[in-house]
């Protein structure tokens, strides 16, 4: 089929890169935003704009909140068809309680897992998830969408397409194709060292786009490779659920063996028993960590078999100073506070796995590395976007002559995925500020605005794309750049007007989550305006030298037409 290895890799890179590139653009962009997802949450929910707190007292703050928790109606509705018999009004048997804090999040995330009576799968659990104000234990209002951690972040790994996990599969396949594109790209790029720093802006759009595509791909190659790879490893249980299907019995065997070895009961005793002071257990865990030179904050507290004689409390250290995730788990018998087990030092394989997943999930405290991650993600976005531009530029002359629509379609899709995506993002942030705080289902409205804005941007891109079919440039690029800039500025101004946390205040008080988002929005606006003006100048230059379009002012004709065709629309 292909004459040689290089050509087969070129074909793979071009066509799989093109098709999956549209998905990868979304994954990379919202992945970049997710680096600061909790900061975006603070911007979106002004009532949560206070400083991060350490894990609050379990006994006085968390336990009362846990007692009141019941799964959300939506979660219960998903149990339809998974039970033999009616669903109860109240779920009484609690499998687990968990509380989770980070150094970035003022709120503490709490979740409760409830046993589902009469379930077809005996392990079936339904969850309740809340965010609490750690200072008081008050539950933060549910209707308010955490735009960073509940919208942008899941968008990047599941596209919010949860039917049969379809979104996860699409993202997963795209990640695999990213890896394939990186390898095939290296195979194709003959001058990888010679052109390491090359960006010939002043040549044709095609040459400039290819240079930038190669540059952004190579310069952050380890980043691009490792993020796609670790993303796949993190969700490997979804893509290759071997341990839950073919090797399910082996898994069960292991759990029984492990329960015996660790002394952590696998099943409930069936006897109700009250819990001792969890705060004392947490304090003991911290003393033990300090004793072995690993003093640290508590990241995660979990209670298993809640309310039962077999219940146990697990305390984990927050991994803020290293890449690997929370660890050093210490487990206590819940009824007495007696030490049951200290997690042993990690095996080599476990360390590697925790490093790989930790590298992607970023629980560490390192602001410079976070910003460098954002840079890497944006370089990835530029790589994908310039790939689209190169694809279109290379083919549009040909398609125009043959009367084909291919280049126009790809170009319109590129506009939708690049500037359209930014417009949707800005629209959502603006809606967040302009819709009243007390609006029930405010999150639902914000989501509607997001998807609608993106849809409108797509229509705009297709409608304005006629020029591309004539080997010209789609004016939608610069028009949408202006909209992005307008949206970003509106978001910043709306924040100042609706919350009073304008930049002068947030910078002077050092409240960086909100200042950071506002500054990023301003930077986006500036870049968008510069790009829009650059595109406008190019458009003027080519209309001035083309004969087929009416001239707004007298310009050079004839001989320059060939020039225009050769460069761009």
């Amino acid at each position: 089929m292909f004459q040689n290895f290089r050509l087969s890799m070129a074909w793979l890179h071009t066509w799989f890169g093109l098709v999956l590139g549209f998905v990868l653009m979304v994954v990379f962009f919202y992945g970049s935003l997710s680096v600061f997802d909790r900061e975006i949450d603070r911007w979106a929910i002004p009532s949560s704009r206070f400083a991060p707190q350490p894990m609050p007292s379990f006994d006085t703050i968390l336990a009362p909140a846990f007692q009141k928790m019941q799964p959300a109606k939506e979660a219960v509705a998903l149990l339809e068809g998974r039970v033999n018999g009616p669903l109860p009004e109240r779920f009484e048997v609690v499998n687990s309680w968990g509380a989770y804090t980070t150094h970035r999040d003022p709120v503490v995330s709490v979740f409760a897992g409830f046993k589902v009576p009469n379930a077809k799968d005996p392990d079936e659990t339904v969850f309740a998830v809340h965010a609490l104000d750690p200072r008081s234990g008050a539950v933060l209002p549910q209707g308010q969408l955490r735009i960073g951690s509940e919208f942008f972040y899941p968008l990047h790994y599941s596209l919010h397409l949860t039917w049969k996990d379809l979104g996860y599969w699409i993202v997963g396949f795209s990640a695999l194709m990213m890896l394939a594109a990186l390898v095939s790209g290296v195979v194709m790029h003959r001058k990888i060292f010679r052109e390491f720093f090359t960006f010939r802006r002043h040549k044709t759009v095609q040459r400039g786009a290819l240079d930038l595509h190669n540059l952004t791909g190579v310069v952050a190659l380890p980043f691009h490779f490792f993020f796609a790879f670790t993303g796949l490893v993190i969700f490997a249980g979804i893509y290759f659920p071997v341990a839950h299907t073919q090797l399910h019995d082996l898994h069960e065997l292991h759990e029984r063996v492990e329960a015996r070895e660790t002394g952590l009961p696998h099943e409930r005793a069936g006897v109700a028993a009250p819990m001792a002071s969890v705060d004392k257990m947490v304090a003991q865990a911290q003393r033990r960590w300090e004793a072995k030179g690993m003093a640290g904050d508590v990241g995660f507290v979990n209670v298993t078999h809640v309310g039962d004689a077999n219940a146990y409390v697990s305390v984990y250290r927050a991994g803020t100073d290293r890449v690997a995730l929370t660890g050093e788990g210490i487990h206590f018998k819940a009824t007495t506070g007696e030490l049951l087990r200290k997690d042993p030092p990690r095996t080599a394989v476990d360390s590697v796995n925790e490093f790989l997943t930790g590298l992607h999930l970023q629980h560490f405290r390192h602001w410079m590395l976070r910003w460098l991650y954002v840079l890497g993600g944006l370089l990835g976005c530029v790589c994908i976007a310039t790939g689209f531009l190169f694809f279109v530029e290379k083919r549009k002359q040909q398609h125009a002559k043959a009367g084909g629509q291919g280049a126009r379609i790809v170009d319109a899709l590129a506009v939708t995925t690049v500037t359209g995506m930014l417009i949707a993002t800005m629209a959502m942030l603006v809606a967040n500020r302009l819709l009243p705080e007390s609006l029930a289902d405010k999150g639902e409205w914000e989501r509607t605005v997001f998807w609608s804005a993106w849809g409108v941007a797509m229509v705009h891109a297709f409608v304005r794309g006629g020029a591309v079919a004539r080997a010209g440039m789609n004016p939608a690029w610069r028009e949408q750049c202006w909209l992005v800039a307008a949206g970003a500025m509106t978001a910043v101004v709306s924040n100042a007007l609706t919350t009073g946390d304008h930049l002068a205040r947030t910078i002077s008080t050092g409240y960086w989550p909100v200042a950071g988002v506002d500054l990023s929005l301003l930077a986006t606006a500036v870049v968008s305006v510069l790009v829009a003006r650059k595109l406008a100048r190019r458009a003027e230059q080519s209309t001035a030298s083309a004969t087929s379009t009416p001239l707004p002012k007298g310009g050079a004709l004839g001989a320059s037409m060939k020039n225009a065709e050769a460069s761009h629309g």
Partner: protein
Amino acid sequence: MVDPIVLLGGAAVSAVIGFGWLALAMDTHWEQVHGETSPSPAAVRALRVAGALALAVSLVFCLGADHPSMAALVWLMLLAGSATAIAATLSWQPRWLRLLWLRRGGDGR
């Protein structure tokens, strides 16, 4: 102990300078920066060695600031950022890199 912020700043500066030198070792970029000349073979060798050393120094600074697992990531990302910065400078304002390696009169002609 040196403040980690200072070390990381030093790592960033060292990486940028290192890539600047590695870029100057290439004819096309030398010409962009210094006008119509080529670097002498001795200059090319020196630039490459200096560039590699500067990148290594950057790694050492990173290791001084953080746990090794973190330092490795910070360094790789600094390399990405620095290479981008040098490429952007070469594309927009190549003259800014003149001071990185002064051209001696009579080079390469």
